[in-house]
């Protein structure tokens, strides 16, 4: 009985956080007013958290593509099927690795910065000042960053995939000497737009929503202290990473 109670207590905290997070999402979406300044601040945030994440996404994408090729060639060589490398790289990239790794990198690069920025605004009373000026900070601060994350992650995923394919070509064709024509034709014929490409796009939209929601929620609810902002930033990375992997399995099981 005592064990059951402690298990219930252990579940209560995360469930409460999840509920508060969803309420925060509803509060953000319910108050949306289509205004020019929302568009402007969303575009500005898309630049700050999306465009500025490009370099790390591209570098990681390129090396993931190279290492995938290396592993694929090593495995497929045993069966004399190394010309199928682009099929294996393409399927795994577009369906899984592209959206998942991009979202994880985005959580580390942009999610933390969103949480820290909003948490610091809370700690320096800027959120209070907005409320006192009759400006809703959820609409003004959280919503543009949430929308920017929603827009940025699919675009970054596309860049990640493109650079990963480039890395794969460089390694498979340039280093290992596979035939370039076979590489590209296999990629073109084996990757389906609806199932592979769009499946990954939908995943990346969901992951973008998860990371940016978690980031703005933990930033907004951070305790107004140095330690509070630090804890909130850590929570953003941990929770969004776990949720990305959980939702990846759910979406793959049901929709792909």
């Amino acid at each position, binding site marked *: 009985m005592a064990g059951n109670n402690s298990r219930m207590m252990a579940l209560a905290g995360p469930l409460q956080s999840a509920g508060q997070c969803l309420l925060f999402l509803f509060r953000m979406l319910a108050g949306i007013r289509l205004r020019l*300044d929302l568009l402007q601040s969303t575009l500005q945030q898309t630049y700050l958290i999306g465009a500025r994440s490009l370099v790390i996404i591209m570098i990681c994408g390129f090396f993931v593509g190279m290492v995938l090729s290396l592993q694929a060639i090593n495995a497929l060589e045993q069966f004399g099927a190394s010309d199928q490398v682009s099929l294996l790289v393409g399927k795994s990239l577009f369906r899984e690795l592209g959206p998942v790794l991009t979202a994880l990198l985005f959580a580390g690069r942009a999610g933390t910065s969103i949480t820290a920025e909003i948490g610091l605004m809370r700690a320096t009373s800027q959120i209070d000042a907005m409320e006192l000026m009759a400006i809703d900070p959820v609409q003004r601060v959280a919503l543009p960053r949430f929308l920017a994350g929603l827009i940025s992650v699919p675009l970054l995923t596309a860049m990640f995939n493109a650079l990963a394919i480039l890395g794969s070509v460089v390694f498979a064709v340039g280093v290992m000497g596979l035939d370039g024509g076979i590489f590209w034709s296999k990629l073109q014929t084996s990757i389906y737009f609806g199932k592979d490409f769009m499946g990954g796009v939908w995943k990346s939209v969901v992951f973008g929503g998860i990371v940016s929601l978690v980031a703005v929620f933990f930033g907004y609810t951070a305790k107004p202290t140095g330690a509070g902002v630090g804890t909130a930033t850590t929570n953003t990375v941990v929770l969004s990473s776990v949720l990305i992997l959980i939702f990846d399995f759910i979406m793959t099981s049901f929709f792909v």
Partner: protein
Amino acid sequence: MSENNNKSKPQANQEPIISVKNLVFSYGRHTILDDISFDIARGSIVAFMGPSGAGKTTVLRLISGQLRPDAGSIQVNGLEISSMSEKELFQYRRNIGVLLQNGALFTDLTVFENIATPLREHTELPEALIRRLIMIKLNSVGLGGTEELMPHELSGGMARRVALARAVVLDPSLMLYDEPMTGLDPIAVSTVRHLMRETNDALGMTSLIVTHNVVQMSKLVDYCYIIAGKKIAGEGTPAELASSQDPGVDQFINGKVEGPIPFHYQGAGPAWSLVG
């Protein structure tokens, strides 16, 4: 030089702008304010003074609607604040200006954009008029020419003055100041003090100031409340408080260690002891 007009408590025929009755507020089990009542005269500058942690800032937060009282009534311009919905509170706050302790300027916006924020949010004024209004407000706080600076490029006193310009840009009828002079050098203190009086009188506002700077407040405010021990321990004009025989008022105004206002934190629960 003293700037106060010596406006006292509201006269019988004058309706107060703020009327607080039997206010009770607690943080958890710790009671901060216990059954306090006061009225604030329209057009006056009133200070809330008292030791740290006495609940001065809590009073401001209750009047601005950031906190809800456990019991009692807070009326501003005849409107009951404590029962307002979130939407009504936002509407109410359009008519008040608040200067927070650290200024709370938006760090990613220039001085100009900081002051423009309430104007853009709550008015449909054309850009040319917004620019003109902001330049007038910036000049009135002596900071013309700083509009393109970022907050981190300002000194503490300048940031406080920019925050004051932002707080009054919509010409509010009620201004709340939370420790406006803390951390400022003597020249900046005098400048901010003059600005507060000039702004209050020129715009026909009412100002509430939370502070523990007794000397500066005696030069500025019309009326003072001293909050200590969860109650209003004393009240009066600065001159009345200076000559008060009340032990609590005398202790606070003259900074005496001995007196009825305790130095040690009075926590909830049983008394804490070094022994046993």
